[in-house]
């Protein structure tokens, strides 16, 4: 065979056709908390992330040592996010625990993060002193806030700092029309779709959500939410599930939601390392 023909044949064989491509995934919602470390050791956890074809993984943990363990093993993959919890049970007490601010300050002085979160806050609790202090810390350092709460909490944080950048965990588990209204009211609000299935079923995107994704393709990200350690074994499945419904969107929109939005917003946290 003529070398040129052989070269063309090899190139054709290796050209990534769309059907053969595996869409990279930026997983914006993972935790590696204290009770995961033994059943899913760090090396195994990183192997799962790579097996799932994740391009990047935003990880926060209770306490932060879990995040640091994974970041040390896979700095190219893990984007550290600082959670204001030292153990998972802090979720229901942290907003009134002033020692949280000391803990955050110590960690922020020691390590680099892309965001503070995921933290849980609802309604007027968002104006409690501990939450206000945390919002100020994020402002001082230019960090995102990964907020799990209702629309009222989001509004209150934006009133504290109109320049805040918020990643709204689970899109607030709110209805798509409310999510749309929040996105249109707050240009510095982004949404993750973790632990939601109402936007897609059987690889098909719900029409109302489709319209929202097409209207705001730069505002959404996917995420698994490993809220118990067992769910680390769901990351691969979740990535496949995400690829299936993203395939139902125009390619450019799918890529933005799958990974480009996450890379554009949080990639700096890796590049500065």
């Amino acid at each position, binding site marked *: 065979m003529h070398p040129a023909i052989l070269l063309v044949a090899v190139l054709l064989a290796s050209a990534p056709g769309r059907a053969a491509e595996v869409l990279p995934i930026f997983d914006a919602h993972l935790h590696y908390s204290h009770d995961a470390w033994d059943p899913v050791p760090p090396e195994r956890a990183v192997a799962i992330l790579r097996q799932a074809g994740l391009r990047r993984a935003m990880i926060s943990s209770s306490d932060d040592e879990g995040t640091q363990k994974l970041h040390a093993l896979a700095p190219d993959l893990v984007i550290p996010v600082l959670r204001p919890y030292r153990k*998972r*049970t802090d*979720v*229901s007490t942290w907003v009134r625990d002033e020692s949280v601010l000391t803990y955050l300050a110590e960690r922020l002085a020691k390590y680099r993060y892309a965001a503070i979160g995921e933290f849980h806050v609802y309604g007027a609790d968002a104006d409690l002193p501990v939450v206000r202090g945390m919002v100020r810390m994020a402002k001082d350092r230019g960090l995102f806030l990964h907020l799990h709460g209702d629309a009222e909490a989001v509004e209150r944080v934006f009133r504290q700092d109109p320049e805040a950048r918020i990643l709204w965990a689970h899109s607030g588990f709110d209805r798509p029309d409310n999510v749309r209204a929040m996105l249109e009211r707050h240009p510095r609000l982004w949404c993750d779709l973790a632990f939601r*299935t109402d936007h897609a079923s059987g690889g098909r995107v719900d029409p109302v959500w489709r319209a929202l994704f097409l209207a705001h393709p730069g505002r959404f990200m996917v995420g698994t939410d490993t809220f118990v350690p*067992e769910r680390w*074994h769901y990351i691969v499945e979740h990535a496949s599930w995400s690829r299936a419904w993203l395939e139902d969107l125009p390619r450019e929109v799918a890529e933005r939601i799958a990974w480009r939005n996450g890379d554009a917003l949080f990639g700096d946290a890796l590049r500065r390392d």
Partner: protein
Amino acid sequence: MRRVAAVLSALLALAMAEPRAAELLDFSAAEIARILRHGPWPQPFAADPGNRVSGNRDAVALGRALFFETRLAPDRTLSCATCHEPALAWSDGRPRSQGRVALTRNAPSLLDVRLKRWFGWDGGHDTLWSMSLRPIVDPKEIGGSAYGIADLLRGDPTLSACYARAFGRGADGIEAEALAVDAAKALAAFQETLDSPRTPFDGFRDALGRGDVEAAARLPVAAQRGTRLFVGRGNCAVCHLGPAFTNGEFHDIGIPYFTPGGDDGGRHEGIKTLRESRLTLLGPWNDDPARATGAATRHVDPQHRNFGEFRVPSLRNAARTAPYMHNGSLATLRDVIRHYSDFDPERLHGDGEAILTPLKLDDAEIDDLAAFLDSLSSEIPGPDLSAGARCG
């Protein structure tokens, strides 16, 4: 003096004892209405439209024979009864069953199995007959095959005759898959007869319904208090509802679900199993041409929350089916109650099982709930092995 002390001691004991058996708590009309929802018992038999031999006496006899048949296993050491022993309320008493290998789930009781909508801890089957076939052909459980079942039905004169009576045709000339499905339908017909008897609770419930105070008061007062807790503050009846004390669905109650080398995805895996199977209400072996009962199977779709969910078990005869949970991780009913009292709510997603909060029960309340659960049990009769009930 000693005699006086004895009398005083007896009087003191009487004063400290439980209220007399004849006492009936002052149940409100709303409480009585909630209690009445847990009956009547037994529930009337309704033939399974997807199984043409459901309720057929000859099929029941064939199913009974196959249930105890070790020749279904390649090494003739295992049968359905290995993990579902009649003397153990049709479970096996182990935390996790032992098939050809160590398994990862607890063997559920087969009592009242005909009332279920989904079968198995993960609901991977939508018919009792397809559920019955799975362990026979699963290499980790009995490890048999459709061919082995077919050979048995064709080659054993007694079983062959029994098959012919039940299905109205001989086994010869029928392909192996069809014979295996028929065998599973006979097994289902047999298991549909495993009704649990009435219990002390049923007598109490019916007496309350007809206003018979004296009869209702026969339920021990601790069990009455437990009943009140169950339908009241405990909110137990939200999931353990109806005459069979189950909603038949799947929930995450904070029980860890790691397995050696991985984890048990529960309902999420079950839905995938269901959707990939030919042996469902939507498949070719459903005997109901109208597919009248297949709507749920048609629409079920795995959700993220399904990962780690397991079926809500019936509470009838729970006292006889220890240990508990999908992995047998809780040894006693008191351990189960303590779990609901003290579980870690952070194991549940904040937007998932919002109805579950730790009950924070004191010891007396735990005792009362245990007494209530005990009142849901009764003596389980063994299988009918009379000549008329057998194949031969």
